[in-house]
């Protein structure tokens, strides 16, 4: 037993060193040392002006400005703050990877390592590239991953309720983008548990879902009542926070004044449609592998409940559909889909679901046998970093 542990620990140690080198390389090549006007302007929003949407990050920033002996209301400080936050986030990703592997059985570590590398590539690149550096999505991913850790480790699971609420307070888009991870894992545990456990997970699931939905409705429809009165003040702050005083007008019009700007997004929709087609084509190998994995997993289900459980896991990313249909930031939606599948699968392996473990190993062995397999390990580098309206530089020339 002790020998097995030693070899597992050795493998994890080696992998963590590799991951550190990998993560640092990705950060170095993608980092552009700039906070976009959108992300800087978001810091001007705060709960000083009411319980408004996307204002949590700004509130934290204003709080730091009040308690720290330095003036935080300048672009230079925004950049420093963004650098520290991103560094902490990347460290959290490393910690997450470590906690995952520690919890996995030794024979299933390898496929999990590949999943983690794949996820690190997209996440670190996206949040260190200029487009999404210090984007609020980073905080939402942090919340989603924390929820996954709490649920898989089975400790203080009630914390998922306030954490999900905080996620929605960072950005109401959390409901469609990352809420699915906590909800699917809770639902999975609800269906896997005994009677007592079912009650516990049922209650947590319902409260989490209701609280998240209520906050979403509030922020989306009722939180912008006195926008006009505070607009000038927010603009003034946004000017001091953004690079060269260029704040993001669209964000403030939408978030503070509640002006519907969907009309202006028509041109971007065309770009999205063209890009998603090409993206799907080039991402096909990974889609095929994912579909084959879930087909195999559903076949392994012995009871109807088990089948339903895996079916929910398979379609959990469908919460992203409203975003794909109504909104235009396809780069962000794709990161959310990748996050969902990687984190949920790794979480299920951490929870020692035998069907998921064996199916994952089978898929891994099946891919490994293919002579061109390693081409597809290198291939995702072409897609990074993910942007927002345009998915990535990979296919940008198709859309013009």
């Amino acid at each position, binding site marked *: 037993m002790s020998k097995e542990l030693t070899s597992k620990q050795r493998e994890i140690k080696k992998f963590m060193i590799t991951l550190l080198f990998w993560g640092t390389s990705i950060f170095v090549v993608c980092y552009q040392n700039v906070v976009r006007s959108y992300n800087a302007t978001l810091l001007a929003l705060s709960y000083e002006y009411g319980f408004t949407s996307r204002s949590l990050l700004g509130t934290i920033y204003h709080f730091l400005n009040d308690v720290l002996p330095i003036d935080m209301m300048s672009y230079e400080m925004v950049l420093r703050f963004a650098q520290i936050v991103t560094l902490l986030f990347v460290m959290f990703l490393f910690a997450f990877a470590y906690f995952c592997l520690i919890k996995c059985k030794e024979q299933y570590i390898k496929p999990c390592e590949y999943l983690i590398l794949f996820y690190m590539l997209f996440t670190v690149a996206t949040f260190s590239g200029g487009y999404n550096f210090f984007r609020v999505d980073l905080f939402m991913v942090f919340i989603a991953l924390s929820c996954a850790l709490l649920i898989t480790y089975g400790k203080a699971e009630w914390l998922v309720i306030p954490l999900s609420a905080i996620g929605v307070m960072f950005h109401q888009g959390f409901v469609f983008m990352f809420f699915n991870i906590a909800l699917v894992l809770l639902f999975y545990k609800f269906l896997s548990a005994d009677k007592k456990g079912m009650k516990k997970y049922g209650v947590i699931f319902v409260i989490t879902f209701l609280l998240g939905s209520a906050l979403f409705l509030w922020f989306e429809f009722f939180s912008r009542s006195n926008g006009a009165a505070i607009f000038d003040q927010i603009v003034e702050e946004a000017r001091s926070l953004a690079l060269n005083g260029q704040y993001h007008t669209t964000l403030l019009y939408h978030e503070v004044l509640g002006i519907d700007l969907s009309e202006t997004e028509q041109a971007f929709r065309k770009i999205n449609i063209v890009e998603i087609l090409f993206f799907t084509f080039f991402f096909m190998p990974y889609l095929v592998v994912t579909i084959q994995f879930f087909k195999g997993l559903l076949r392994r289900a012995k009871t109807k409940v088990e089948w339903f459980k895996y079916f929910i896991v398979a379609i959990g990313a469908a919460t992203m559909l409203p975003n794909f249909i109504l909104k235009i930031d396809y780069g962000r939606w794709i990161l959310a889909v990748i996050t969902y599948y990687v984190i949920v699968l790794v979480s299920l392996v951490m929870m020692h679901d035998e069907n998921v473990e064996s199916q994952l190993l089978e898929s891994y062995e099946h891919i490994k046998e293919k002579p*061109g397999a390693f081409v597809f390990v290198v291939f995702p580098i072409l897609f990074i970093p993910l942007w927002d309206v345009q998915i990535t530089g990979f296919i940008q020339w198709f859309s013009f």
Partner: protein
Amino acid sequence: MDKLYKKDIVFLLALVFFALASFSRFFDEKLHSHTALFPWMKEYDAVIVSTVVYFIIIFVLFVVCIACCREKYKSNIYYLVCFYSTFAFPMFLSADYFGCTDIYAWMLTWIGGILLVTKRFEWMLILISFCIALISPISVFSGVCIILAILIYRFFAKKENRYLGYSIASFVAACIGIMVAKMLGGFDLDAQQVLSLERFAVMVIFMSPYLYIAMKFFGNLVHKAESKQKWGIVCWIIGILPSSIVCIYLQDYARAFFHVFSYFILSVIIHIASGEEPVEEQLENVKEKIKEWSPIPILIIAIPFLFMTLWISGQQFLLTEIFVDN
């Protein structure tokens, strides 16, 4: 030359998909101004055609190398071919190098590689060296050096005098090619300052494990070789110096990075495909060592490709707000 097996074809198809995706990722329709011996080489249509031919020839080289490689080392050649593709596919599609005359030199080098692997019409290497020097003088330090390094290695390893003859003749032909290019007014090194010195320094730090791998590989190769063979290996190692020194002197760091990796990977591919036993054995040893060190050996390919994709070929976008008032 053996035939291609089903698994070879599957691998090559995966590589075709990779080439297509690379085209999508790196191709920039803009053609910057580059010097060229013949005016038609600067024409947009000619550049497009030559880029397509470039991809066709590299695939012919891969097909020949995979078909000629011994079954035992097939997985190694797949790995090397994939590694080489991560450099060769993006390099001349990216905006800064799209339309450079190097592309012709590399095509000729690969044709030379095919001749070296099949061991047919090897005398044509003399003509190829002349053409490389004539069309792209900077490629004398890369393409011609690869050919010369392999010829000299073969002379010492196989003790066949014809290889010495070919290498001397190729060297002389390359020198004549440079002189003719100078007379015709086509002698221009066409250096591109894509990378800053700071970025290059960072890359060198990140690439230091590869230096260690190369040292292990060549160290063992020299250690196990007979006295005469050692000279061949030393010449092979020294062959990288002209290209690196010239590119660094010209501050064309991206080209230096590309040349160093291309030089070693391409020459190892040719040696493996030619059935050079000492090289095959050493590569196998290095592979085992890498497997011991790294739980994910494929990252050996992925890390230089990160730099190739995002620093050398560029991120393909400008955040306009960065440049306002700056």
